[in-house]
């Protein structure tokens, strides 16, 4: 199953339309769209506007590949599970987000094992056509870098507790 997700906040019709068009051209039915509110035609393919975190995690778990906006929640979840993920950054100028931070995110994560960037909607179909060659990587550790864990731990334990 191809899981298509726009995250918890905003719709992203430019991405949804491109994936739906690809599915229609290839005669594919094994997709599930989480679109955040999409008024276009999805040819009866399975879809929903939003998912809670637990349900989204289940959908992700059953996906062979994910197409997503360039949000860190989906990126990290795919990296953890070793699921290949095509990310499409939202553009602030197109009203797809409040600014261009997803473009920065895509730049930073491009080239990392399992993450493939579609810089425009036209890059989505070529990536999906070779989905079977896209590897999800080996799955990253579920926790942050030891450096960050110890920095936060150090901060947490530096003061006095008021409760004991």
């Amino acid at each position, binding site marked *: 199953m191809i899981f298509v997700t726009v*995250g*918890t*906040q905003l719709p992203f019709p430019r991405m949804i339309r491109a994936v739906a068009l690809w599915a229609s051209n290839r005669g594919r039915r094994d997709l599930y769209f989480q679109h955040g509110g999409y008024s276009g035609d999805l040819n009866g393919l399975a879809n929903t506007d939003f998912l*809670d*975190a*637990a*349900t989204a995690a289940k959908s992700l778990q059953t996906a062979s590949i994910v197409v997503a906006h360039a*949000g*860190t*929640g*989906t990126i*990290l*979840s795919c*990296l953890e599970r070793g699921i290949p993920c095509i990310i499409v950054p939202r553009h602030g100028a197109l009203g797809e987000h409040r600014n261009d*931070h*997803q473009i*920065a*995110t895509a*730049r*930073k994560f491009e080239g990392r094992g399992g993450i493939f960037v579609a810089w425009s909607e036209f890059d989505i179909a070529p990536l999906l056509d070779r989905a079977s060659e896209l590897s999800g990587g080996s799955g*990253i550790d*579920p*926790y*942050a*870098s*030891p*450096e*960050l*864990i*110890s*920095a*936060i*731990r*150090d*901060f*947490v*334990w*530096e*003061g*006095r*507790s*008021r*409760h*004991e």
Partner: protein
Amino acid sequence: MSKQRPRVLAIASKGGHWTELRRIRPAFNGCEVIWACTDASIRSEVQDGRFIIVPDANRWQKLRLLVCACKVAILVLRLRPDVIVSTGAAPGYFALRFGSFIGARTLWLDSIANAEELSLSGVQASRFADLTLTQWTELGVALPPRTERDSRKVYYGGAVV
């Protein structure tokens, strides 16, 4: 210095903010942790502590922001955490703001999504939080030992991935 078990409020909005907060969980080993998120279904992920649902809002939803701020204020006053840690967004910002009024030590971990500039909430939080961390070396100074830190500065001390 006391080494009694600190009470930690770990708070984030759903989506990427929560995913990042979940990834720093080992930092709270041995603490009394209260997890707070805007998505009720997260409860099933939390085994090591209490879980509380908080309302969400963004900066264009003025009424919801007010509701969010009030609920978070009550939560912070009721729990009186020793430490508050947030990865964003609005509820976490309010928790740090009210937490700093009641003497909690506060840490803002700016989302890894902000790779080229700190989030607006992060910039605001850095004015009162005890420690503000970015996850990109370009956006912060390498985290020095405790005694050399300036609470108004933004530091880099590692990333969630």
